[in-house]
């Protein structure tokens, strides 16, 4: 019997480490070490309900497990074979208890290729990776294929870059392969920067060898003997596991000189990023690795022509690499059979926002937004109404009800005014104000612009200021015109992908929620009741019973009234925090 304990960053933060220790101790105390193995794995993806403990072979899925639950799990489940009911998952919509993860809505529609080993193997043990067909692809490629043949497999698979651009991976490899040079490089982009997205981190934490194996294959294909992983320094656990994995791979002769006796040399170094969003752009990433200021340069030259230290360089992101070994093991044809016509395979999304099942999911391309949000995601929190979903990270667009049945792939998302990006997916409900949402994302891009080109450096700042003006009720139609013109010019003239997409949240919310903008401008009203400058909390006299809950919870003491008498909010002091509204059980506080 195996007890799999999630060792991802999220569960780690909720004491899964202690839980792991406690389980090991319980197992040892009960003299079960011979039959029961307690294993720390990578992320299961269901972070909403972490820490997770999964029991193999019966697939029992325990959620929100605390360190002090260890004795119960061992005494009840392991020894007596009785599930610990209170730790089982309860479906928020169907209200039923589900014990087998395969029956959970969250996992039913998923197809885990990139995440295949996350939550399944111990990422710190290369033997477990090898047992799961690890390094088989590398072995076969080195033994049986020419670089050209090996590259063709990736081309035939139809895999496209998962970092945001969606450029055909095989083609990228082929371009780098064909350039002649004395030195080439393979770079893994692990500078994951989209707010809320953490698939790359999870893969490196949960299955670092898949990335190492893929990079080595890539090195063989393009003729590079050096690989670099550019990873955010804020990912200590991922860095640790990657370092461990690199050490083990070298020890097993899977990295280094004369790999598997084939004469192929390849090794990998780690480079740390300091958390600049724009360093996820490949030219900026390369400049950062070279010790220069992390800012993009004009392409061409593409990295495949002149990249790291001026040498041909192939840059792919973590998720892209994680798909590679499986493509070789199961064949390009198999991979190309998954997904839509132009987007093959699966995509990992980080589900966040006002959704029941927050976490990391992987679905075949072509799955609809509705399936993702309402089936896998379990619908909107607290029974609220779905309003929009923002895909593609900070520069993605906000899609609405009418886009819910669109099959998700690179081209459809682009056509709908959003993008795939690296797979962030943030769900919003009726309480979210779309002007504020746009302003929130602009705040991020203003912060993360490198400052090199004028439209991004100054334009995004001005966009933010215009949105701020409107959200405070000080905008006019002139500001709305400027907002649109400026957005279009920034998209049209910016140097890199950051500026070319940063106005998307503005344009998509203007296109899909124009009425909301008009309310802010014409009526100085925020329909969602979010823009503080535009709302007013008032006591509804006929509903107020004088329970004093609002007055007791007001942080600025601006509510007065005796017990059992109608209360009163002093508007000049109110900071519009909404505490009274939330605490009132009698619908006696109105927002207007």
């Amino acid at each position: 019997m195996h007890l799999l304990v999630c060792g991802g960053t999220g569960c780690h933060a909720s004491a899964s480490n202690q839980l792991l220790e406690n389980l090991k101790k319980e197992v040892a105390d009960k003299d079960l070490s011979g039959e029961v193995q307690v294993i720390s794995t990578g992320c299961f993806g269901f972070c909403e309900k972490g820490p997770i403990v999964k029991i193999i072979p019966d697939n029992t899925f325990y959620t929100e497990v605390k360190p002090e639950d260890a004795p119960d799990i061992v005494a009840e489940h392991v020894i007596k074979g009785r599930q610990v009911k209170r730790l089982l998952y309860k479906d928020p919509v169907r209200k039923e208890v589900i014990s087998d993860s395969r029956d959970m809505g969250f996992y039913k529609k998923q197809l885990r290729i990139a995440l295949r080993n996350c939550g399944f193997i111990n990422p710190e043990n290369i033997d477990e990776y090898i047992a799961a067909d690890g390094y088989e692809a590398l072995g076969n490629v080195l033994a049986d294929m020419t670089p050209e043949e090996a590259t063709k497999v990736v081309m035939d698979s139809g895999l496209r870059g998962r970092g945001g651009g969606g450029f055909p991976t095989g083609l990228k490899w082929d371009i780098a392969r064909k350039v002649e040079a004395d030195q080439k490089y393979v770079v893994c982009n692990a500078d994951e920067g989209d707010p809320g997205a953490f698939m790359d981190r999870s893969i490196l934490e949960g299955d670092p060898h898949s990335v190492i194996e893929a990079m080595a294959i890539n090195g063989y294909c393009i003729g590079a003997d050096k690989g670099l992983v550019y990873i955010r320094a804020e990912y200590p656990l991922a860095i640790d596991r990657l370092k461990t994995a690199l050490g083990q791979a070298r020890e097993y002769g899977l990295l280094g000189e004369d790999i598997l006796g084939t004469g192929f040399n390849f090794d990998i170094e780690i480079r740390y990023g300091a958390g600049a969003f724009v360093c996820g752009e490949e030219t900026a990433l390369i400049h950062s690795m070279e010790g220069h200021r992390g800012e993009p340069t004009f392409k061409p030259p593409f990295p495949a022509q002149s990249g790291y230290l001026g040498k041909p360089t192939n840059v792919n992101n973590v998720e892209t690499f994680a798909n590679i070994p499986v493509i070789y093991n199961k064949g390009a044809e198999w991979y190309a059979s998954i997904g839509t016509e132009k987007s093959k395979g699966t995509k990992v999304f980080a589900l966040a926002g006002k959704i029941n099942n927050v976490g990391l999911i992987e679905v075949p391309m072509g799955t609809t937004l509705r399936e993702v949000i309402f089936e896998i995601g379990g619908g909107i929190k607290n029974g609220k109404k779905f309003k929009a979903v923002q895909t593609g990270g900070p520069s993605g667009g906000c899609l609405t009800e009418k886009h819910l049945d669109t099959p998700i792939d690179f081209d459809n998302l682009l056509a709908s005014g959003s993008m795939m990006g690296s797979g962030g997916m943030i769900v919003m409900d009726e309480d979210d104000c779309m002007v504020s949402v746009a302003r929130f994302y602009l705040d991020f891009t203003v912060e993360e612009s490198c400052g090199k080109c004028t439209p991004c450096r100054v334009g995004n700042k001005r966009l933010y200021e215009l949105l701020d003006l409107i959200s405070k009720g000080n905008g006019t139609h002139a500001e709305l015109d400027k907002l649109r013109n400026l957005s279009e010019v920034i998209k049209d003239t910016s140097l890199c992908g950051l500026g070319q997409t940063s106005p998307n949240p503005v344009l998509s919310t203007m296109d899909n929620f124009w009425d909301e903008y008009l309310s802010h401008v014409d009526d100085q009203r925020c329909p969602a009741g979010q823009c503080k400058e535009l709302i007013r909390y008032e006591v509804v006299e006929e509903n107020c019973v004088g329970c004093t809950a609002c007055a007791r919870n007001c942080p600025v003491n601006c509510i007065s009234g005796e017990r059992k008498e109608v209360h009163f909010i002093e508007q000049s002091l109110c900071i519009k925090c909404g505490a009274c509204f939330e605490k009132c059980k009698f619908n006696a506080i109105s927002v207007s």
Partner: protein
Amino acid sequence: MGKLKVKIDNRLIEVEQGTTILEAARKIDVNIPTLCYMNLGDMGIEHKPGGCRICVVEVEGRRNLAPSCATDCHDGMEVKTHSIRVLNARRTVMELMLSDHPFECLTCAKSGNCDLQSMAIKFGIRDIPYEGEKSTYKPDTSPAILRDVDKCIMCRRCETMCNDVQTVGVLSAIYRGFESVVAPAFERNLDHSECTYCGQCVAVCPTAALTEVDHTNQVLRALADPTKTVVVQTAPAVRAALGEEFGMKPGTLVTGKMVAALKQLEFDYVFDTDFAADLTIMEEGAEILDRLGKFLAGDKDVKLPILTSCCPGWVSFFEYHFPDMRDIPSTARSPQQMFGSIAKTWFAEKIKRDRKDMVVVSIMPCVAKKFECTREEFATDNNPDVDFSLSTRELANLIKRANIDFNKLPDEDFDKPMGESTGAAVIFGTTGGVIEAATRSAYEMYTKKTLDKVDFEQLRGMEGIREATVDFDGFSLKIGIAHGLGNARKLLEDIRAGKSEFHAIEIMACPGGCIGGGGQPLHHGNSAILKARQKAIYQEDSGKPIRKSHENPSIIKLYKEFLGEPLGEKAHHLLHTSYFDRGKEIVIEADVKEENR
């Protein structure tokens, strides 16, 4: 590879592979506006970061607009440079740039000579629709360069000059996004950095983010003070460029008009730095022969090559970057400082004035000279040998302020004795000139023969690094020449590695030498202007009756009356200097924190 057919604004043109849209358009006189772009063709400097986005054009089939400066043409390309989409984008980008720029045009040092202002005029900008926060930074005044980076538009030209051309590495973009700006690391002040004050950043700055420190008012005050005798000296490169400030063609020599203007400005004595350049040759030439003689005699304590030392930017450069080699350059002071030293001793005695009652002003093509005259070693009892150094641009400004119609001035002559000079001194103004002047005198001193022909064509030119051999009557003198500090670095690294075979090397900090100095009229990246100035310099030289420094009668007289022998004791005190390891001077981190508090 075949030619590419490209259509620009419906006009067909054939261009070579690798031609950018901007270059192609210029071939058919379609002048796409540019702001950050800079091309110093002959110097091999092309700066096209694609940052300002003013030069964007529409390319058929392309999703977004293309920066024409950085986008190569491809066959069958169709480009529109003035479609409504392009014009709107360009204008919006311009408005954005102006929305983060101080509205100080009326009082700005660059008003009338500002690329941003010209562009705003060209675009017909009448209001700026985008209001909001402006980025502000602390101002920085150094002895030579003023940084007012609120006016920085992030064109990054200065960065290219400072890092790629000069390899000084002081200026780079710091901070991010809206706050980003070009500054020394940690936003230190320039005088707490390794800045050499070469002024090449100032020379290419499109706005007034980088300007020279203005000393014109101090000079006007000195001129108005009846107790002061004000002496002015003018560097050779000034006369070949000053006319440009008055609408004359580049390369117009205005020596006589310049002297006339200075007299109208009521300087008491209008002298020539060229006089001191001849003096420099006397000392430096003697030093070359002295070191060469000892070296050839097998003296192991003597090092070769000997390096020239008239350029203050270059002197600071090796003091910061090659302090271990500071015994290699000549110890001769620069002509500016030799002039000041002699003016406040020999000449002061002649006119019976105390040095404290004398004010020495220099007119220089240079920004670093402002720093040089503040160096402690060039002062006696806190009284500097040279009080103020003005750039060519500042002199033009003074002339304009004094209502002088420069173009109509008659030619006048320098005063004597310190206005007398030779052709050898004039060519100090261009790269290769100092070493040619030294060669003319050293040859005659070494061989005791008279030169048939004083022109050493092999030392002339514009290539960044040049080498030549001069036959000294059987002995081959190997000469190296570098201009631009990046080129100087290469020669110095060779010397450090023991790979250099030169006997003497001339180094000038600025590309082109003083004609391309940081204090000259702005050439806006047009290298043809530098060539015209260089031509003018050689023209002045060939027109001079005396063309060898050691034949200058006033110089001969100076040695006879006052100095004695070159390299003699008096000359040693007044005309030579020593160098410092200035790397040690740079403030440590704690000071930086203090400074920024």
